[in-house]
């Protein structure tokens, strides 16, 4: 069967046209891309969740504020943060707990957000890379990462920082070996490990 068959609208399920109408309230706005060029988008959003399985409303405390979410129960915390709350600093590298790029804190404990359902979080507090700097003051580890050139492509960086920052909270003067243990699950293909370790040692000195 070819894919150019006429579209028929089935009763009982939501129709395409109906769906579009229903989605009409959502954002039309300006997307600023980092290269400084503004792209004006006027199309309607389709981020409507009126599908089976039914979506549910939850609230979640993220980076100090309570956020409302309307998600499918199967939505991972990583997807909820990234796609619903637009906190895209948290990265997904493998989506099965093998690379730690998605590391966030739940009640201060480093957690793989790709292996956690958003609905599991409950009333615990989530901290992401976006919430690590306090009152516009960078965490010393963020400063140290910049000073030591501990980023290359930068995709593993948020996970590295969330993991190492937790170590420093609990162990203010870690040895190199303790840092290696803490970061032993964080994958980096560019090879930032030596500089990540140096940056963490340096940040510990400055904290």
């Amino acid at each position, binding site marked *: 069967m070819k894919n150019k068959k006429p579209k028929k609208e089935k009763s009982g*399920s939501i129709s395409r046209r109906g769906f579009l109408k229903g989605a009409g309230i959502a954002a039309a706005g300006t*997307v600023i891309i980092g290269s400084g060029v503004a792209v004006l*988008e006027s199309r309607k959003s389709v981020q409507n969740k009126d599908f089976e399985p039914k979506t549910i409303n939850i609230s979640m405390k993220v980076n100090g504020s309570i956020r409302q979410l309307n998600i499918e129960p199967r939505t991972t915390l990583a997807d909820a943060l990234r796609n619903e709350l637009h906190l895209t600093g948290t990265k997904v590298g493998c989506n099965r707990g093998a690379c730690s*790029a998605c590391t966030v804190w739940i009640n201060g404990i480093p957690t793989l957000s790709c292996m956690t359902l958003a609905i599991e979080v409950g009333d615990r507090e989530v901290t992401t890379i976006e919430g690590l700097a306090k009152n516009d003051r960078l965490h010393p580890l963020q400063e140290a990462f910049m000073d030591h050139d501990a*980023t290359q492509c*930068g995709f593993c960086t*948020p996970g590295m920082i969330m993991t190492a920052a937790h170590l420093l909270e609990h162990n203010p003067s870690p040895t190199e070996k303790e840092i290696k243990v803490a*970061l032993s699950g964080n994958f980096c293909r560019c090879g930032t490990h030596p500089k990540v370790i140096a940056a963490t040692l340096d940040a510990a000195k400055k904290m």
Partner: protein
Amino acid sequence: MKKIKLPHGIPDYNLGEIVREVPNSEPPALPVNKKLKVIGKRIKRIDALAKVTGSAVFTADVQLPGMLYGKILRADVPHARIKSIDISAAEEHPGVFAVHIFEKRYEGANPKKNSPESGYPDVIYAGQPVVGVAAVSTDIAEDAINLIKVEYEPLDFVVDLDRARKPGAPLVYQTDVDQEASSGGEDIEEGLKSRGNVRGPTTRSFYGGPRGDLEKGFKEADVVIERTYRTQVQTHCPLETHGVVVDYNRGHVTIYASTQSTKGTRNDFAKTFNLSKSKVRVISEFIGGGFGAKHSLGSFGVMAGFLSKKSGRPVKLMLDRKEEHISAGNRPNSVQFMKLGAKKDGTLTALKQLSYGTAGIGLGAGVGNIAQAMYECPNFKTEQYDVFTNAGPGAAFRAPGNVQGAFALEQLIDELAVKLDTDPLQLRDKIDKSMIRKVQRERAVQLLNWKKPKKAGSDPGPVKKGIGVAQAHWPRFVNLDSTVEIRVLRDGAVEVRSAVQDIGTGTKTVLAQVVAEELGLKAEDITVLIGDTLFPIGPPSGGSVVTGSITPPARNAAHDIKTQLIELAAGELNTDTDNILTENGWFFSKTDNSKKISFHDLAGKLRVEQITATASRSDDYGGFMVGTVGFEELGAVQFAEVSVDTETGFVKVDKVVAVHSCGRPLNIGQIESQINGGVIMGIAYALYEDRVIDENTGQQVNPNLDQYKMPFTFEVPEIQIELIEEYGARSSTDATGIGEPANIATAAAVANAVYNAIGVRMTELPITPSRILAALNKAKKENNE
């Protein structure tokens, strides 16, 4: 034309000056780094803040209003004819906006005849894209994918390099095939014939073809060594998978792409969808690594294009980790039959190389030009064959070919040194005519307090230590299609604009440094807007070409801007243009220091909102050195120290010393970072990584990061880097890249160190504990006999 005097040579060695005739438009010679303020320093990455705060927007992070999520149904059989595809249930699924069936294959080699009767292309590897779905979420797109029914008629398949070469093996392609090489630096010779699954041989590179007379060379030899080496398939594993967001909007297409070539992605899309290049815009601000695999639009990009066109909405299609492993590129494996002849004094008399490798359904499985180019050897011949297998297509991968080639060549040279009972560095002094590697070896001897290595395997006790050395060769490539525009705005802002992308190497920062140096500013004063084809086209990030290609035009355009500003300043300060000096953000009168105006205030006097200058890469000063080896190649020497536990077979790399050069170094921290990356990737290649395909099912059995073994913090050794400045007087910045050379020698150095530790040659990668134990047992048996 004018004559300028440029620094030439290596500081503390033979630094001098050379006069070159250059076009009048070229800026004055840049002095050596010691005399500069911004270039050659440890300047913080200008995009580091975005990376450490999570505000950097990668393609995976792009969200557009109305955006859909794409997902691909991939064939789960390695070789089959498609009898039917039923997408009706997927189309009806709520939340699905478009379904598209591929009518042809958009990857691998292109058979000249490809018109399957069914209307669908044959499946030739497990993982080949068949149907795409765009829906309101990835989860729903996946639900819909599961509703699609594809009926396959299975065909015989072959995934193993050796089996595929045998007569009667199932054929991947029925006809001769060709494939365009990517901009990643892999060699693909056009028009070669196939016999069965074997295509080739390639016998030439841009260094030329065979030399001399092999037979005569081997006759002259006192020592002849013959060895077979095997290397595995390695997957790129960038942490951000391949992916795009395609917004096909009434004939105007905007593509956000995780790509190493905005230009290549744009051109691929325009060609595939029959659009003018001016209707396709590719944006790539942050890229989560690439390592050679992200040079083109990719079949997933084509699919996203169709889905966006059909749905009229932006479609994001990021590969998942399994798709990344099975379909998005890999370093082809190799078997290399090597034969080396040498005289007692070490002089090489003959070198013969015969190789087979498989890039799956693609081409580019050669073993590079390192055997041909690194050492002086009058009689040389290489035959490099591509072998097709029913596996995902290979791709350029950090120093394509030469990493595989170095593993064989550098062990062979090491073995020769052992046979001749000579120091491996002294042997190389004799046979290696590269000036830069000579200096690198000298530097390493001082640094390491180097002595001839101890007798192999002579450590007492079960854990034996060893040291090994290997060298890298990579040509200094330049891409002339490299253009930069510089703008100064009335508020004093300086913008660098180019389509060139920064894949994590630090291109943004080196551009800012070069422009800041020229304009008397700081790197952080410069706004670098790159990775967007609305700007002038830049080079692809591959083959270590970017720095040497894009920084000279950046400096030239900045110089043009400076000339315009000096004219303005001369008018404002009532003096001659010759009398204006620019420094630390000020324009001074040389003769009267009190006469000055700041960069910011001067920009405020512009007649229009901005002034602009554009420059493209000019030819190399002194002419291109096509096909010559030597002084200005990107050579390197690396040393590895290992511990081998002869009871468990476990190898640990304790330390790597990497001695490198890349012309004029622009940013020391970034160069170190790339060398670290190349070394770590080389260790992983030596000891861990291995794509394994089950011969019974044709499926990769380790397609994720928990199964495909990778180095983490504990596998990363101490890495000591020695960087040697080298001035070749070849361009207005005289800088080159470092990505490839950093990765070439490491695996060979590790293998040589393992030999030095245990006295047994490991000729097959990866060097796993089981292979170590097997080799030790075999050696023990042979000794007993």
